[in-house]
């Protein structure tokens, strides 16, 4: 099972906003904006913009949000693990670094 729900999408945003990586790594910055029928989540890391995704307003809590994994540069199962806390903030940074998306320790 790896389908992402609205709850999972909210949890990912919450985790990115509050999560503290290990010392020496920077925190994610999350900016939320409501526009149209969506809440847009913009994610930055190390002062540089990394990703952006939309959460549907008014949808059921278990409504599918399967477009989100690709938007945050994760596979379906990685995104599911991230939402369910099986993947930590550090783990997420490691995956991004392994994919050459970010530097593990941005200057």
């Amino acid at each position: 099972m790896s389908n992402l729900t609205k709850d999972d999408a909210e949890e990912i945003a919450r985790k990115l906003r509050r999560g503290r990586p290990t010392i020496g790594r920077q925190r994610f910055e999350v900016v939320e904006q409501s526009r149209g029928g969506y809440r847009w989540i913009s994610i930055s890391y190390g002062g540089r913009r990394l990703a952006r995704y939309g959460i549907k307003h008014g949808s059921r809590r278990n409504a599918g949000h399967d477009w989100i994994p690709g938007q945050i540069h994760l596979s379906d199962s990685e995104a599911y693990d991230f939402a369910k806390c099986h993947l930590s903030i550090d783990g997420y940074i490691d995956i991004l670094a392994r994919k050459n998306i970010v530097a593990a320790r941005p200057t």
Partner: protein
Amino acid sequence: MSRLQNPARLVQPEYAIQALGQFHLGMRYTAKTTQREPSIELEQSGIATAMLATASFYFDLQETKEEIKVIRILADKLMIDVQEIGDRIDRSASGFCTFITSLGVPGVSLKKPIPVTIRSCDDGFIASFLDANISIGGDTLADAVSSLQDMIADSFNDLEDADDSTLWPPMLRQKQALLDVVCRI
């Protein structure tokens, strides 16, 4: 039949107990069920075997009816499962590619039609502009495409003037893909 030979073992069904109870009372014997089965009246002579056979018949009939009920329930469940699997196959097989020629947002326009991939998901559709890695979902196909148009315009407005050094590679690629196809009017 053998289970009916010993009355002590006849805990259920109720009709079997009633049949044997009346057999012990003598004179006239009636085998009845409590499940709306027809009553059968028998004369005293040779009654035991007939009584037991009748009770056994109803006992087996009752068991068969219960089994049929279970089979019907399972068959209904199976029908629902098959229907659901069919729906899932239909949905998963219904991805397609099309083009959008406008964004429907004031101030920005498309330089050329852009390819959009649309696929269905559990409870709606996901529209993607793959070159820019932009995807969004909607309850209906029109909803998904309209949201994608908004997101493309919004991302363009957001990234157009952003310094390249403030973007990680995926966002830089998104910016370049958007600058290729979107312009101000």
